[in-house]
């Protein structure tokens, strides 16, 4: 095997750009400790933007060269549409979060440089996670994401909530990672290889011992479940989401979660399943092991717990935390079906989820920057005081509920479609009912905004000005939330194109 085909390194340009930006940010921060925050945030955002553009260019590059995928570092990383899709998603998240944070006074007060350098590292971590196809690379990538996010969670150093969130996050994360490592060690022992391709070869070659597999599955799920906050590994989520700085929460709920799903898909669809024929068709579990039922149960638990617990919440961030738990449950639905359509639906949903969820968090940021709070009661009459914000937040929340004509509906429809296609009707019904009852708590926010605190007179309204900057950002989130609910063909095409998760099977292996 050749090490370091320099040619192929070009496919890692986005990561390089991020690294370079990271260096730049640190330098800038060190050079001008005070007053450089504007420049730092601009630099970071530009860097992430450039990386995003490079990701897209890479997409076209692959397409142009008619390559299915490119392996790097001797099979331990891969650049393929699947990873590029997640990189795009993560890039968008980081970019938007970077822009959110740029105007936040509290972030500035706690050190812009630190924030952005940590953000950049996590982004690199996410990028690597989506590309990793080797256990070692995977663990390194996960930690690259995790460790800075622990710090980010506690970024408001004097803030007790933030510190507590960080402590919980780090302890939970450490235990989860440790447990997962334990599982991965068994996997290595079972398969005798750390590359996914190798493991898959071993898995496909004969009888799989169910006990070993179940231990591995159990342990690995702790780690991955922690990342995507699936029940019963979700419990850190509300606390950490509530305590962390809002941009960080937004980031954790979107990019970090997306990365978790990338890993889940990559790991399970490579080593525990193989496509029956075409990867866009039916998949089979290795050794006919019924792990899908298990994941189905987890998925039901996750969405139900998320939805039920959200009912009582009074803090919008915490409410959205539970909502993000529920959404992890929904996304897992696509994972259960072992079908190309399911993968497509997951990717599709993750893409739209990012926009609507970021939009929701951004609305919270906008409100608190304009002097509001994070409790639902602080949102009373907001729709009248700031019509645009109210409109946007309502749209995001209804999209999260899954109502047409918003993108969230289409995403859910595809997830359900994947279920129905493969005969998981009961699961589809449960999920559908879950999404219906989830309306109740989303609507509580909307209710507070519009149905409460209605001004007697139109002149009595005390306007809440969120400013043009946040307005534009909100609009940026709003556009895809609505447009993708009306015409989503391109995104579906992209998701289908990117659903080639398996790197060990199928046509078009590069070497």
């Amino acid at each position: 095997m050749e090490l370091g085909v320099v040619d192929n390194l070009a496919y890692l340009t986005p990561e390089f750009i991020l690294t370079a930006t990271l260096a730049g940010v640190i330098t800038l921060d060190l050079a001008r400790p005070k007053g450089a925050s504007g420049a730092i945030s601009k630099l970071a955002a530009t860097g992430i933007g450039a990386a995003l553009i490079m990701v897209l260019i890479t997409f076209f590059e692959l397409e142009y060269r008619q390559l299915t995928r490119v392996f790097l570092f001797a099979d331990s990383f891969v650049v393929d549409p699947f990873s590029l899709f997640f990189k795009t998603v993560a890039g968008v998240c980081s970019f938007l979060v970077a822009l959110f944070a740029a105007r936040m006074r509290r972030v500035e007060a706690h050190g812009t440089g630190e924030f952005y350098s940590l953000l950049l590292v996590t982004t690199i971590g996410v990028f690597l996670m989506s590309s990793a196809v080797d256990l070692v690379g995977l663990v390194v990538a996960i930690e690259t994401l995790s460790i800075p996010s622990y710090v980010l969670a506690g970024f408001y150093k004097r803030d007790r909530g933030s510190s507590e969130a960080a402590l919980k996050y780090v302890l939970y994360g450490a235990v989860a990672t440790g447990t997962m490592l334990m599982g991965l060690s068994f996997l290595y022992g079972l398969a005798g290889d750390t590359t996914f391709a190798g493991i898959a070869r071993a898995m496909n070659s004969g009888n799989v011992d169910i006990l070993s597999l179940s231990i591995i599955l159990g342990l690995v799920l702790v780690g991955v479940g922690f990342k995507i906050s699936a029940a019963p590994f979700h419990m850190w989520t509300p606390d950490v989401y509530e305590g962390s700085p809002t941009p960080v929460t937004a980031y954790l709920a979107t990019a970090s979660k997306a990365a978790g799903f990338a890993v889940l898909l990559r790991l399970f669809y490579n080593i525990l399943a193989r496509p029956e024929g075409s990867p866009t068709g039916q998949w089979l579990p290795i050794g006919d092991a019924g792990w899908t039922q298990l994941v189905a149960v987890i998925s039901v638990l996750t969405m139900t717990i998320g939805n039920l617990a959200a009912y009582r919440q009074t803090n919008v961030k915490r409410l959205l935390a539970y909502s993000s738990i529920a959404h992890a449950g929904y996304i897992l639905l696509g994972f259960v079906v072992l079908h190309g359509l399911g993968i497509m639906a997951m990717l599709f949903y993750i893409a739209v989820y990012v926009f609507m969820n970021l939009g929701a968090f951004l609305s919270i940021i906008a409100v608190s920057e304009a002097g509001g709070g994070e409790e639902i009661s602080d949102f009373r009459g907001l729709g009248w005081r700031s019509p645009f914000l109210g409109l946007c937040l309502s749209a995001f929340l209804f999209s999260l509920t899954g109502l047409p004509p918003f993108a969230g509906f289409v995403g859910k429809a595809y997830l359900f479609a994947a279920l129905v296609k493969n005969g998981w009707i009961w699961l589809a019904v449960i999920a559908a009912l879950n999404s219906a009852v989830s309306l109740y708590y989303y609507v509580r926010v909307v209710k507070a905004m519009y149905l409460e605190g209605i001004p007697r007179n139109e002149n009595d309204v005390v306007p809440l000005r969120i400013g043009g900057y946040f307005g534009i950002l909100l609009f940026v989130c709003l556009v895809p939330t609505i447009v993708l609910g009306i015409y989503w063909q391109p995104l579906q095409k992209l998701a289908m194109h990117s659903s080639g998760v398996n790197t060990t099977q199928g046509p078009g292996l590069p070497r």
Partner: protein
Amino acid sequence: MIASLEWFLLIGAFLFATGVYTILTRKNAVSVLMGVELVLNAANINLIAFSRFIKPVSSIGPQSVALPMEPVAASGIYGAPWIQGQVFAAFVIVLAAAEAAVALGIILGIYRGLGDVNVDETVRLKG
């Protein structure tokens, strides 16, 4: 008696169990962190043990791993399969250190704020 794989695995399992026990029973955040280290080291022991006894064969199962190794073609960046485990372990050690450093930093922050690092006291965020 030649130490077979099972022994190493048992030690690993024991370490893991100890770690978990520590994590679940200790109130002190630092102690919990130490439990985590135990867990990580249990994984390390497994990795090293597997890399010693591994035999990549077509059929995998408990009976096959105890057989003497046969060299096979290296398939990853970290070299031959028996090397991979060790490399993995090395990475884990490094990551554990980094993690511990960050965790300790955070715990320190908490200590500064609360004057205590009792994990049962950090319950402001709940419900």
